[in-house]
């Protein structure tokens, strides 16, 4: 068997694993002063190499070692994950230096988390899906509780862990129903057997439990209402660079796995899971936005806003179709566009929060007062990210919203479209509250503060990303449509 294993296809994963181990060893032997720049340097180098190695998967369509797919869909998410984690590392250089002395473990854990994402987004077998998600979860719990002397970080980690353990167990129960019904864990094989006569007769009773229970695990990762309760506490208590990771890469992984499992294994159960996701989408965006309105901490407000955005991403999956000729607006490409736009935008917003925390000690709305006078670059960056979150053209958020609204309207889900529109307006309201606080509230007695160099680079890259996705929408759309096409069997 091993001689048929195509190791080149596994190169990105292997590179990440080796880099994580190297980082731990460098941390053991390097002096503190060297380690401060060497650890993030090695980590970023590993991510860039893995990113380059992953390019071989663009356009491919094969299964490696039985349980991993090398295809454009997986490649797309790997690209988003690698780029975002590089930004997270840049943003965490100073933030983590001042808060913990276990830097080697921190960067190694970020790399292992990326590895878990790589495995999860390309998994074509329920067992690999579970192991990918579980590795990601366990690493995320530790990263969330990384600041052990900070009570909020501890509380966040324990809440995240308890929810996560239960969600995993429920998801596994759903998987076991699917396995019992079809006798296989391979996604494509499950789809085939679900069509077979003896299974079909039983389907009307098992379909709902199997779909709902499996969806619980994915919905937990993607923080959809009502599986979101962990998210605000985890996002607020975790070190802010970790929040950047959780709210973008980890969430995107939930959507990637959800899309692959539902589209590959259960296309014949489409009416069940689409109905479920339709309800979840409406619930998620409405609840997320309504609670976000009332927050006084910007970090917590962004946490709820990020729950609401998960509802928007879900719209794409609800309206998924396979139009002839591989035209855009098939729904799944909306999910992909939203994920990349959202990664830059939301990671950027949380990065500004991290910088403000660094400069002023906390991230309440009050800390943002008169930011334009104290840290003009941060205020300008935050303005761009907030406008993008609100969906203003020509920024990334606009392109993303366009690609999830279009398929929903095309499918004539008008109720969903109207609810989403109202929610987009409500969200713009609380984003503007922060803008007002930054630009129009004057607090003369507060000192100005500087932004760390790594953070400055990360912010510039994310600003370029936000403009880039918005302006070169065509190119990203092309990528998304191509990546989605393989998954939809076009």
């Amino acid at each position, binding site marked *: 068997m091993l001689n048929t294993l195509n190791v080149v296809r596994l190169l990105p994963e292997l590179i990440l694993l080796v880099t994580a181990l190297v980082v731990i060893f460098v941390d053991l032997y390097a002096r503190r002063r060297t380690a401060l720049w060497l650890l993030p340097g090695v980590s970023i180098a590993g991510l860039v190499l893995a990113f380059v190695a992953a390019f071989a998967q663009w356009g491919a369509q094969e299964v490696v070692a039985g349980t991993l797919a090398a295809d454009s869909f997986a490649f797309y998410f790997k690209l988003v994950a690698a780029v975002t984690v590089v930004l997270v590392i840049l943003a965490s250089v100073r933030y983590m230096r001042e808060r913990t002395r276990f830097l080697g473990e921190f960067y190694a854990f970020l790399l292992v988390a990326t590895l878990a994402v790589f495995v999860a987004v390309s998994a074509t077998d329920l067992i690999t899906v579970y192991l990918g998600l579980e590795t990601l979860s366990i690493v995320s719990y*530790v990263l969330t509780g990384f600041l052990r002397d900070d009570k909020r970080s501890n509380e966040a980690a324990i809440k995240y862990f308890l929810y996560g353990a239960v969600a995993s167990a429920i998801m596994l129960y759903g998987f076991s129903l699917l396995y019992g019904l079809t006798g296989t864990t391979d996604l494509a094989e499950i789809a085939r057997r679900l069509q077979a006569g003896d299974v079909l007769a039983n389907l009307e*009773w098992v379909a709902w439990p199997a779909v709902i229970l499996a969806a619980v695990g994915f919905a937990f990762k993607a923080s959809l209402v009502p599986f979101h309760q962990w998210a605000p506490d985890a996002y607020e208590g975790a070190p802010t660079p970790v929040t950047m990771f959780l709210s973008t890469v980890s969430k995107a992984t939930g959507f990637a796995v959800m899309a692959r499992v539902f589209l590959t294994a259960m296309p014949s159960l489409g009416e069940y899971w689409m109905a479920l996701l339709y309800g979840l989408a409406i619930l998620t965006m409405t609840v997320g936005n309504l609670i976000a309105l009332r927050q006084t901490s910007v970090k917590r407000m962004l946490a709820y806003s990020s729950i609401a955005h998960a509802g928007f991403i879900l719209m794409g999956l609800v309206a998924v179709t396979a139009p002839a000729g591989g035209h855009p607006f098939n729904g799944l490409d909306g999910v992909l566009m939203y994920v990349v736009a959202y990664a830059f935008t939301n990671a950027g917003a949380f990065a500004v929060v991290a910088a403000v925390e660094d400069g002023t000690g906390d991230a309440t709305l009050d800390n943002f007062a008169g930011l334009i006078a104290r840290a003009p670059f941060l205020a300008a960056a935050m303005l761009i990210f907030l406008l993008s979150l609100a969906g203003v053209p020509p920024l990334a958020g606009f392109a993303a919203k366009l690609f999830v609204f279009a398929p929903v309207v095309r499918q004539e889900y008008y109720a969903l479209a109207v609810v989403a529109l109202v929610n987009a307006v409500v969200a713009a309201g609380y984003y503007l509250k922060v803008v007002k606080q930054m630009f129009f509230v004057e607090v003369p007695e507060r000192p100005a503060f500087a932004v760390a160099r790594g953070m400055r680079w990360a912010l510039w890259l994310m600003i370029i990303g936000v403009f880039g996705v918005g302006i070169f929408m065509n190119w990203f759309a092309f990528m998304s449509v191509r990546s989605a096409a393989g998954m939809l069997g076009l």
Partner: protein
Amino acid sequence: MILKVVFLLVSLFTVGSALMVVTHKNLFSSALFLVASFFGVAALYVLLEAEFLAVAQVLIYVGAIATLIIFAIMLTRGMMSGRTSPRNDQAAWAGLASVVLGLVLLYVVVFRVQWPVVEKPVPPDTIEQLGRALVGRYVVPFEVASVLLLAALVGAVLIAREKEV
């Protein structure tokens, strides 16, 4: 017939112990009931003619994990005696909701679904097949599991370390 009675007894034992794990007010007693429940699951594996799984269950869960849990409880201050399982005033409602949902699910899964049955005897070389699967088709999940364990190990040390001075 005898097999059915044995199955029923073993299942009652397993579920009963599991129930005690979550309802007992002392954490240490809960851990001991957990051991009993693990044994019950091992007996179920034997009834399913999965001897290797049964042995692995006893070795890993009863032998290693239960011991570890008991050690962890013994080494944590104030956990050995008295009322140590946390409980809040939502327990009754949560319990009711879980029982109702669980019964509905069980009704559907047990009485409404004709599970497809493979009417073949268990092959004699299951262990060999299992070994081949782990280094063949399931080599990637197998290795990912080891990464998971490594991460969990490092993470546990990191979180449970002595307080810095």
